[in-house]
């Protein structure tokens, strides 16, 4: 299998189904535009069967740059953050097709996405890797990898990029 940048001319977004309508619809309808507008970079995992006019998508994830701001920080707190708001890499979506779930691809793709976040972080400053979990099950998945849910939004989970950089296998 190959992980490549999403190309709507080559990749069959219409047949992708992960069991969560919102994630399927986004790939079919909005991924192309979002990528063209440079709002996200979308990566697809594909299995090239050679015969089909378009390559079937096994899984995908989308990355953006983001920033995190805490309401009403004191001056003392701001002194702890030389760059404020705090820049972050955001994993906006990660989905595996129903036919390929249960094979460890979610973890493999999270690893790939994290590596890409760290690579971007070599050139662009960021302190956090943030994920949007689509539901509680997805949030549990990310928690299993050490991400911490925010108290105000348990479907948004955070981890320090420096922690990942220092320890990722």
């Amino acid at each position, binding site marked *: *299998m*190959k*992980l*490549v940048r999403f190309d709507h001319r080559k990749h069959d977004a219409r047949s992708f189904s992960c069991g969560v309508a919102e994630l399927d619809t986004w790939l079919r309808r909005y991924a192309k535009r979002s990528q063209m*507008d440079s*709002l996200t970079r979308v990566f697809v*995992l594909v299995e090239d069967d050679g015969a089909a006019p378009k390559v079937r998508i096994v899984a995908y994830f989308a990355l*953006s*740059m*983001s*920033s*995190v*701001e*805490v*309401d*009403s*920080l004191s001056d003392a*707190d701001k002194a*702890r953050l030389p760059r404020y*708001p*705090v820049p*972050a890499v*955001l994993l906006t979506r990660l989905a595996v097709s129903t036919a390929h779930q249960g094979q*460890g*691809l979610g*973890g*493999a*793709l*999270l*690893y*790939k996405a994290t*590596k890409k976040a760290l690579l971007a972080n070599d050139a662009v400053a960021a*302190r*956090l890797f*943030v994920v949007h979990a689509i539901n509680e099950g997805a949030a549990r998945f990310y928690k*299993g*990898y*050490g991400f*911490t849910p*925010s*108290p*105000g939004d348990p479907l*948004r989970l*955070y*981890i*320090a990029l*420096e*922690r*990942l950089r*220092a*320890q*990722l*296998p």
Partner: protein
Amino acid sequence: MSRVQLRVQESLRERLEEQAARSGVTLTEYVIGAITERLRRDQEAANRIELAASDRNWFFDVLDDRSPLPDRWERAATASAKIDG
């Protein structure tokens, strides 16, 4: 190009036309300019995360956390090695 139709009160239409004329653009250009600006702001806001002041201690803990990563990253790394790219 595709057509988008809007239904608005006559009084609003007059106000929009008047302001468009003052700005030296057509009504269509004026409305599209406003919509595009709103779209840009909304898209930027979608990726900007704001935390409540009550989350500040939690936030600093996450930034400073250097505890060992869970073992499942090892399995994820092994699985990812089978993927090209």
